């Protein structure tokens, strides 16, 4: 059930009163805007949510070969995401055991060792100590091998998507992901071999807004018509039918879904074209036969119904707390981290099947840029909307409540233009801020 509440119709409360308030009698759902401005709340989020949840680190395709590494951050901590010389994928804190300097400074590469520039301690790609210069100065009892790079408490993957958890007692990743796994499957099924890869080129940018606003925005289809009218124009000018269907705000009737454990997704019949596999005029006449062939391969491998599901639905998936996989005009993998209450850092990549031909890959990247990213026809306007909201929160004391009541009391399944799936996020957020486990 999407809409449920505590006995008294209010959240458990947090600090000086309920910040997430669900009123089932009057059918309203409100979030106090203090949650977007308070440094204390951000500190509590870091401890209660980011230090407890599975957070995305990277994809297996980014560390394909032994010795491959990428320097990343996990819940704000510097981490080396690498494949050791024996082939095992690791997440090691990028912190020298001696005096704490970063031991790896490059963004990515392939190496046999990580060497701290300060005193020259070296580590193997599995984290074990390789050498300590002048180690005869330590007493014989000194546990040299005990000085290996510290691994992140937990590292697990689902179909090559690697997540880390700072909490050694966390439940396993597959259980944590709950119904989100089915939606990752829909992405992975686009590859004939079940192998997807992150495409070179990273989009990293800041948004001067609270991180939770991007969770909402990523799955909120209510804003499409107003925020993205220039993108709709572009589609219309290119011959794509973007006329809303009768009784709906979007060209197709789509849904917002609760996937359990705070994860949520939109689920919409496609109208905007998909590299796998629905042709629209933007792709050009010459792409038609190729997209037909991709579609045929899907049908042969998955059957008609599953192929239709994979090829002809768009899904913006949010894995609690901060990973979004947009499977729309192209596939994006995007996560975001709070830097301050009014500032987040966003990192995004494109994902595609490893088998794609050059023409298919070029088409996927072209389709990506029509909508997504800091130079796309839509994302900059999302950024503008989020930054305007954050500016509005300067008056949070006087205008304190954000409203997320759309679709409450509806006897139908929640639409993607309702806010039922946004409420899923906020209930989980509220529960964890009140001490619930991940």
């Amino acid at each position, binding site marked *: 059930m999407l809409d449920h509440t505590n006995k008294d119709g209010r959240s458990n409360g947090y600090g000086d009163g309920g910040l997430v308030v669900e009123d089932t009698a009057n059918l309203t759902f409100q979030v106090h805007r203090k949650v977007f401005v308070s440094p204390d709340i951000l500190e509590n989020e870091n401890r209660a949510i980011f230090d407890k949840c599975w957070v995305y680190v990277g994809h297996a395709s980014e560390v394909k070969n032994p010795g491959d590494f990428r320097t990343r951050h996990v819940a704000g901590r510097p981490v080396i995401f690498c494949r050791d010389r024996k082939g095992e994928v690791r997440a090691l804190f990028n912190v020298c055991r001696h005096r704490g300097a970063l031991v790896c400074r490059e*963004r990515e590469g392939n190496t046999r060792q990580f060497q701290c520039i300060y005193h020259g301690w070296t580590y193997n790609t599995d984290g074990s100590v390789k050498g300590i210069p002048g180690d005869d100065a330590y007493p014989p009892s000194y546990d040299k091998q005990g000085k290996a790079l510290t691994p992140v408490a937990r590292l697990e993957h689902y179909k090559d998507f690697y997540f880390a958890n700072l909490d050694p007692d966390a439940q396993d990743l597959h259980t944590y992901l709950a119904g989100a796994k089915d939606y990752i499957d829909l992405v992975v099924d686009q590859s004939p071999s079940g192998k997807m890869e992150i*495409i*070179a*080129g*990273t*989009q*990293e*940018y*800041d*948004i*001067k807004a609270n991180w939770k606003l991007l969770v909402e925005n990523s799955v909120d289809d209510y804003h499409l018509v107003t*925020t993205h*009218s*220039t*993108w709709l*124009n*572009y589609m219309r*000018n*290119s011959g794509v039918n973007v006329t809303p269907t009768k009784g709906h705000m979007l060209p197709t009737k789509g849904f917002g879904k609760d996937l359990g454990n705070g994860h949520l997704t939109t689920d919409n019949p496609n109208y905007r074209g998909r590299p796998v596999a629905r042709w629209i005029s933007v792709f050009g006449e010459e792409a038609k036969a190729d997209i037909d062939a991709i579609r045929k391969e899907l049908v042969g491998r998955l059957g008609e119904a599953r192929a239709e599901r994979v090829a002809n639905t768009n899904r913006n998936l949010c894995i609690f707390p901060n990973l979004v996989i947009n499977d729309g005009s192209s596939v994006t993998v995007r996560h975001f981290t709070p830097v301050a209450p009014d500032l987040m*850092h966003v990192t995004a*990549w*494109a994902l595609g099947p490893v088998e794609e031909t*050059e023409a298919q*890959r*070029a088409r996927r*990247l*072209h389709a*990506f*840029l*029509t909508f997504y*990213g*800091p*130079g796309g*026809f839509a*994302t*900059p*306007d999302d*950024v*503008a*909307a989020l930054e305007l909201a954050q*500016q509005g929160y300067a008056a949070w004391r006087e205008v304190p409540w954000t409203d997320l009541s759309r679709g409450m009391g509806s006897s139908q399944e929640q639409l993607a233009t309702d806010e039922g799936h946004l409420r899923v996020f906020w209930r989980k957020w509220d529960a964890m801020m009140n001490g619930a486990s991940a």
Partner: protein
Amino acid sequence: MNKPLDPAATVTRAEVEDFLYQEADLLDSWRLDDWLSLLTDIAEYYVPPNDKPDGDHRFTLFTIADDIVRLRERVIRLKDPNCHAEYPPSNTRRLITNVRITGMDGDLILVAANFAIFRHRRNEPAPRQFIGRYRYKLKRTDAGLKIQERRAILDAEELGAMGAVSFLL
């Protein structure tokens, strides 16, 4: 075998500088239709990703990779008051220096330049700064120099505080 064209016989640096300064003025004053008239019918515009500045847009996710069709659509968008990221339009000021003619690619003149662009927005006390280099392919036509390709390559390791690239870089 054709002898490669000598750039010096085709164009002078002063002529290229005048052209780039004129282009900068059109962009900073948001005369975008006039700016489009500086392009050839097959012009392309690229902003590579910060971590792969020398990448190929066919295999690499760029920040912007427009062919002329999408570039014209981008101008339609930028002129629309519903282009929220650029409404009201930013005040931009671009400083272009170190202009050099670096060679020829067939009949295209290769030009390199450095840029510093300051983008001012209401409610933002400090400008967002975009620093980098341009790589142009210019074509000499009966109507003067035209842009066949322009590539704006940012120096920063990431877009970071620049946020979006919502105006023409």
